[in-house]
């Protein structure tokens, strides 16, 4: 195992995960206002109408596939015959992947060709699309090259073992080093995506509003919160003009 392997499959993943976790915590604390899907539907909805659902639904299936393939150890799924598992992963994964890619191409085409959407595209969006596009392109190439054209590579013996080992803090870089280079590239790019994740619009994924399913429809809130002027409590990083906020706790008005 070379030094490069150690870097790519141990050092780099941990650096990226630190960035992912610390970045999200930092942004959540300091940039609630910037935390949004930044929908561009107001500018254009004819293309978005099909591209965005295709991309997102395709992606959600692909992510479920990744969960099964990477997180669940192979020994747990022995009751599923190998051929069926392969058919499921290549078939469902392949179809979901194609749907996702068509959606992604639609989204990128829309970003580039709709003047209003293009003007609203930030540098972080561009970087995000380059990295996300690379991850997806490599992932799809890998699937087609190894699982559909080739006879099938059992990544659950190597890639998945390495992936889980990272979270046990006992990284098995050798397992990953033995995997085909396409898998390696896909995985490394995916970690790069995790690294930039918190600094892009992708933060919207972590606020997926599942709580809506249980919450009462009408939300009531009292004006009388936090003791700060306005409607929210104090936020780190946002001092009030005039230098009072630092002494807030001392000024016990109420």
């Amino acid at each position, binding site marked *: 195992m070379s030094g490069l392997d150690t870097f790519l499959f141990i050092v780099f993943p941990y650096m990226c995960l630190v960035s992912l976790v610390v970045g999200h915590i930092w942004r959540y604390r300091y940039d609630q206002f910037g935390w949004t899907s930044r929908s561009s539907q107001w500018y254009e909805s004819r293309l978005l*109408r099909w591209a965005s659902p295709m991309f997102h639904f395709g992606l959600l299936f692909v992510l479920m596939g990744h969960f099964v393939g990477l997180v669940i150890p192979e020994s747990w799924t022995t009751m599923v015959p190998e051929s069926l598992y392969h058919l499921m992963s290549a078939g469902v994964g392949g179809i979901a992947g194609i749907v996702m890619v068509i959606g992604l191409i639609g989204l990128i085409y829309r970003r580039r060709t709709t*003047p209003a959407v293009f003007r*609203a595209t930030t540098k972080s969006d561009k970087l995000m699309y380059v990295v996300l596009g690379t991850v997806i392109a490599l992932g799809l190439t890998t699937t087609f090259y190894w699982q559909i054209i080739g006879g099938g590579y059992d990544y659950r013996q190597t890639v998945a073992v390495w992936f889980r080992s990272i979270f046990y803090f006992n990284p098995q870089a050798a397992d990953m080093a033995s995997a085909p280079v396409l898998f390696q590239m896909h995985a490394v790019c995916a970690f790069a995506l995790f690294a930039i994740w918190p600094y892009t619009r992708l933060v919207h994924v972590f606020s997926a509003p599942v709580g809506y399913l249980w919450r009462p429809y009408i939300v009531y809130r*009292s*004006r009388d919160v936090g003791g700060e002027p306005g*409607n929210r409590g104090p936020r780190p990083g946002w001092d009030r003009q005039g230098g009072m906020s630092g002494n807030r706790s001392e000024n016990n008005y109420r």
Partner: protein
Amino acid sequence: MRVMAQMGMVMNLDKCIGCSTCSVTCKQAWTNRPGVEYVWFNNVETRPGQGYPRGYEDQEKWKGGWKLDRKGRLRLKAGGRIRKLATIFSNPNLPNVDDYYEPWTYDYDSLLNAPAGDDFPVARPKSLITDKDMKVEWSANWDDDLGGATEHGYKDPIVAKLGDKVKFEFEQAFMFYLPRICEHCINPSCVASCPSGAMYKREEDGIVLVDQDKCRGWRMCVSGCPYKKVYFNHTTGKAEKCTMCYPRLEVGQPTVCSETCVGRLRYLGLVLYDADRVAEAATEPDETKLMAAQKSILLDPRDPEVLAEARRSGIPEDWLEAAQNSPVYDLACRYDVALPLHPEYRTLPMVWYIPPLSPVVDALTETGHDGEDIGNLFGAIDAMRIPIEYLAELFTAGDIDPVNDVLRKLAAMRSHMRTVNLGEAVDPSIAEAVGMTIAEMESMYRLLAIAKYEDRYVIPSAHTEVANALLEELPGCSVDFTSTNGDSSVGEAKPVPVTIESFQLTKQRLEAEHYSDLDHKQ
């Protein structure tokens, strides 16, 4: 009974001259920023007309507000929670730039920098969305004063519903202005549509707000509101809406639109309502009875039982007093002349309208009749079906009787006051014809026609003990809080509300060396 207080507004449409001052001052106060160029928290539409955004009242298309399902339960018209999440990646009911309009500016620079020449330089319109040259084709009130009505008028959803009864030929046309803000609904479908729970109704005064920190830009509130009064800030990716100028209300000032209204036609006041009966009112099966259902949950602020319950809910005394003097309660419930806009959306809207008598009076006077004669007026109200059916579609889900009743009251007031003003013998039968006494009629006249500032706006300020924390404070550090025992942490000095526009206060504040020098009683 669970008593809650709600800030409401009434607009007396007869007085609106369509000057759009309210829209402009509101825009200057709230939406003169990038991302909300196209946003008018307050807009004034000419009716008949398509409104802003275009045709927003067509709920079969936009699916805003609530509906009843087959079992009579209240459902969001655009679908429930699961459907909302399933369509979150692309909202099928979201109006976009074409439905509002593409905001623009002019390339003024070319006027200044054009070289000397034979041609007069022009400032081309430039899109604020794409920066490119654009053709100006629509705006927030493109069909102002029925402009283009012969061509576009039929796209007004109400005109479409009434069929070809509404005519746009000059002689047969009628029109009036409809200023609109967020209704601060008692049963707000925008709040119910927000997946992140970022929108809320304030417990104290019922104002509906978007928490800018919690909004995640899922844009479901925009389509959920049937009045299309939540807007998407395309720069920040967050929803924004009319705040009812809560920072002003909290210190007892009227909203910007009310304060600057040239016609002085806006009224602000509190109503008390029974929160336990909101669902009951919103699920009234008969759309034409929704207005009555909504009025039935508004509580009489003089009823001792209501007052006792209100005190138990923690509503402070000065607020109860404000509710008793509320012009909104008086106009909606006591004189029964204010109607809600589109009650059939089932959101229980809290901006009420006194329908205009002017189309009737105009028609009378144009044909050479006496527009203040009670017989003529009553006759005209009965004869002029079309404007009245139109008003009924706006305010009473199509039921013309309540509209008729209001117009007859306004007509009677007009006639009665003429006899008073001309010193003629007062005829009590005029007031009686509309079920009022002369005293009631004259006090309604004072509220509607004289409309003194303090009668129009009865605004209790935020609880004083809380308000201190809400008001802007004098810039300075805590050391300035010198109290007698030298302990600065007790903060005896009260912060000074700099938002209160008082020349003396401002001057004093600017000139004061020390915070403690200020006269806090002022």
